[in-house]
């Protein structure tokens, strides 16, 4: 009964004390304590138990190693996929730029001086004669200046516009959280 109790509960002095308390409650006759200590010692040094501890430790190392390997494999494969996407997108950007330039050139060909004049003449237009011109004073009119090809509306992707999740380390993130938490205290 004592053995069964000891096996069923966690091993140690507290367990033995618990068993003895239960025994008192259940009116079990007193047992000689030196014998109990002997049994506990025998239990601790049992060969099968030592083997299990070794196997457990070894399995723990294997599991930790497997977890680290799996994590590394996962991160590496994701990095490789991201890298491949970067390569594909780089190619796609270059191809899109070429297509854009090609379409722009085609459009310029359709609106070239020669084709526009031809179309205008076909529609019945002709060059204006100086005598047909009438100049009007338009208050506030500003004469057209040369073209400005600046793309001011174009948003430039820079370090400030990239979300922090993409360039922030875990420590940076924790630091930021701590700082913000202190701020709201």
């Amino acid at each position, binding site marked *: 009964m004592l053995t069964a109790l000891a096996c069923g509960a966690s091993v140690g002095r507290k367990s033995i004390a618990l068993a003895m308390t239960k025994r008192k409650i259940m009116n079990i006759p007193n047992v000689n304590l030196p014998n109990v200590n002997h049994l506990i010692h025998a239990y601790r040094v049992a*060969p*099968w138990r030592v*083997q299990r501890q070794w*196997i457990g430790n070894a399995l723990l190392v294997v599991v930790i190693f497997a977890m680290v390997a799996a994590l590394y494999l996962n991160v*590496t494969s994701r*990095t*490789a*996929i*991201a*890298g*491949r996407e*970067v*390569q594909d997108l*780089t190619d796609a950007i*270059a*191809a899109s*730029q*070429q*297509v854009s*330039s*090609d379409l*722009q*050139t*085609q*459009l*310029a*060909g359709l*609106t*070239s*001086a*020669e084709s526009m*004049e031809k179309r205008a003449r076909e529609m019945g237009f002709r*060059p*204006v004669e*100086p005598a047909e*011109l009438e*100049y009007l*004073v338009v208050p506030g009119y500003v*004469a*057209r200046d*040369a*073209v*400005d*090809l*600046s*793309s*001011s509306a*174009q948003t*430039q992707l820079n370090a400030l516009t990239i979300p922090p999740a993409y360039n922030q380390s875990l420590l940076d993130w924790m630091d930021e959280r701590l700082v913000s938490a202190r701020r709201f205290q």
Partner: protein
Amino acid sequence: MRQQYGRRSQALAGALVIFALAIVIQMTRIQNSPEADTFRQLSQDYAYEWRTFYPNRGEIYDRNGRLLAGEKIIYEVGVDLTIMTDPHAISYAAADALGMDYNQLMEVIQNPPEGISYIVLADYVDAAQANYLQELKKALNEQAPEGSLGGLTGLQFKSHPQRSYPENSLASNILGFVNREGKGYFGVEEKYDSLLAGNPVTVLVPTDPNKAFEIPNAPNGTTLVLSINRDLQAAAEDILDSALGEYGARDGIIAIMDPQSGEMLAIATSRRMDLNEFWNYDVVYDNATEFNPVISKTYEPGSVIKILTMAAALDSGTVTPNTTYLDTGSILIGGVTIQNWDRNPWGVQNMVGCLQHSLNVCMVTISTQMGANTFYNYMDAFGIGHLTGVDLAWEAPGRLKVPGDPDWYPVDLGTNAFGQGVAVTPIQMMAAVSAVANHGRMVIPHVLYAMVRDGRQYQVPEQFGTTPISEQTANTLNEMLAISLEEEGSQALVPGYRIAGKTGTAQIPVDGYYDSTQTNTSFIGWGPVDDPQFMIYVWLERPTTSPWGSETAAPVFAEIAQRTVILLDIPPDSIRQQLVQK
């Protein structure tokens, strides 16, 4: 029983350890085996690959944002021999679509050089031809029996950009062209070749996706905005073509510049080529100076140079507008008798009459009064014999003989004063005369208005040349030239606009002698006189209907000036002055 389990466990553990050790030993053995180097070499070979990047060459726009030079997609057509199924089908299709020889294609495909797995059949293939072949390949793949490949399997298409000129021959003399290797020739393409850049770059690129950040960035070229006005350029070319036919001239040019800034608005030449077919260069031109004679071709300008002679005389105090002289029709200088254009005496003339009637005797008189040193110092200050610095390739400096040169003679002081015996380019004359139109200060002619890079436009700062004459001299001469045209009733006059200018007629030396029937006729003029916004130079080479500039170049000037004021929105003087008064 427990001992049995223990032994079995130990045996199992031992076996596993031995197995693990065997793996480690095998790994070590492979790493150090004789084949290891081969495998390492193979992995290195596949770790990087040569790739060609085709960054876009910078575009070229006119001042109103019209595209003059851009990029279009063309294709390299090749065969991947490792997956090719039917060489006959590929040869037949390529021969049909690309106009190539079937037997030659078969020979190339079936007998490739040792170790070659990809063969280029044709490059610079037009998009339409490539699309046709791609569609054909797709159709054959769809028609192929299930489990087999189409006949054009292995035929591959690689796109890359090529320079394209949507306006074809318009402004070809300004733009220049780019050959298939990406090098610019003539005009803006050559002058700004390194800026436009965008040349293909072949580099080693890692195939390892973890090294994607090592992919080189081949930046696109800088986009250029020219000061050229496309519509004005088209009008100038049209008018020049008509003038060549009307006056029977062999060649000609019309150049239009803003005399206050030096911006070239149009440079029309009679010989132009479709820049998309640059390989026809040899067919169109006999030599490089013909590509853009405005900057490259030197000639004896004739009477238009009298503007500079008179400017020098006025500025040096040799004469005033009211200075008179007796024109006897001829004058002796350096042992040579110089005559007027009509060989007649014109009696007492002042300096306005001298310009109005374009009298050679007058010019010889005032140049000799100035003296050789003063005269040539002024010509040097006007930039005669020097490059103007125009930003176009192949500018010629011209030639001004000066005292001390082995081929200079005293008579040259007289002949140079009315534009014979001196070689200039039209752009040189415009730069020099701009001092008269621009209050004494010369401009540097240029075609570049702005540059665009990374989405930002950078204006080219204004640059000015020297100030060879005072503002007072310039304004006086401006008025004298306007009056001389008005009193002459010149055909160069433009109704509603006050114009200043001068005709030029220069005999062309043939076999060492001047031929009176072969002339270069020209006219340089600007307006409106009180606020010059355009300067136009017209040069017709060997007109056959008349040898005189007043009857050939002057009316062409009037025609192009009328188009210019319309296209540049310049109201007539009366309206403009009303606006100023308000």
